[in-house]
């Protein structure tokens, strides 16, 4: 009996009722500097696709053609909010948290290039890669069907019985060579490096 009275008294205390029915802490707000899904700043997108290429999550971002302009679209449920696309975009089309402020302040950016690698144990020196490369075709229209070339300006050529890469920096990353290689011997990789400009003294 005494314990029933005790419990009834305990549960009828206004303090207990208030705490039971009402939330004690103020609603937690997400601070504005938190990284969120990237939003559009309204600047013009040049459709360079840097954002799509750097995105680590599958199908998270697509640069779409709208009526009269290009526009990146972020897909929730796919995007992991890493913010890499914001950093990679050269035109500041995207914004998220204070990433843009930081990259502007520190003058950081991403530089990218394409790295070509031929696995000599797989390559059978057919020359398909050198022949199919559109850059090669433009530099040296006389490029032979075997992949040999008299020009030193081609991206790669068959030289002394093996594929030699001469001008990696001219590669546009089209991967035509990869598609045309019968042995998957040549690989094209997009390399990205974070760079920082010297701060002004």
């Amino acid at each position, binding site marked *: 009996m005494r314990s029933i009275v005790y419990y009834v008294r305990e549960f009828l205390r206004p303090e207990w009722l208030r705490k039971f029915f009402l939330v004690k802490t103020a609603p937690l707000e997400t601070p504005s500097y938190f990284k969120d899904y990237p939003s559009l700043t309204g600047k013009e997108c040049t459709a360079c696709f840097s954002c799509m290429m750097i995105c680590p999550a*599958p199908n998270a971002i697509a640069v779409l053609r709208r009526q009269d302009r290009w526009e990146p679209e972020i897909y929730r449920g*796919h995007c*992991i909010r890493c913010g890499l696309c914001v950093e990679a975009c050269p035109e500041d089309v995207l914004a998220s948290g204070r990433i843009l402020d930081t990259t502007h302040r520190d003058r950081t950016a991403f530089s990218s290039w394409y790295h070509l690698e031929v696995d000599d144990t797989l390559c059978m020196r057919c020359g398909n890669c050198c022949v199919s490369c559109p850059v090669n075709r433009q530099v040296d229209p006389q490029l032979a069907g075997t992949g040999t070339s008299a020009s030193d300006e081609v991206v790669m050529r068959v030289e002394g019985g093996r594929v030699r890469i001469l001008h990696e920096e001219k590669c546009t990353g089209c991967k035509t060579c990869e598609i045309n290689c019968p042995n998957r011997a040549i690989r094209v990789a997009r390399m990205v490096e974070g760079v920082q400009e010297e701060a002004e003294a």
Partner: protein
Amino acid sequence: MSILQDIKNAVRSRSIHVSYVDVGSCNGCDIEVLACLAPRYDIEQYGIYVHNNPREADVLLVIGSVTPQWVDKLRDIWEKIPEPKVAVAIGNCPISGCVYARKGTLTTPPVENYIPIAASVPGCPPRPTEILSAILSVAPLIFKDYEEKQR
């Protein structure tokens, strides 16, 4: 009857029991769910209680991108939860497979293919606040006037 229903509504809105199941995630979302229990977010002050017994649960938080071994077990767990019940997908994994949605990975997202999902909280991982507000907004929708809706 409606007074009884009102009492039920009031009690249910302050007593939401949550069970969570990880069907193949990286554990990031599990940690965010656990962070909801910590004093910083304190999920219990909203009347949400976490304990991992599906038979006691109202809300099932599904985490992870569903590996094939989990498919039948996830259905079993869903069957065990008494009505009224609701499943919430936490994180990108149950929605799209997130970073596991690639060729050659042993996952079969989305989780909607196996059990009905009432709400999803995207994010990799979602913030505890987002998980909290999702539970708080979806649970009353399903549980309010449940008995009257049945008739």
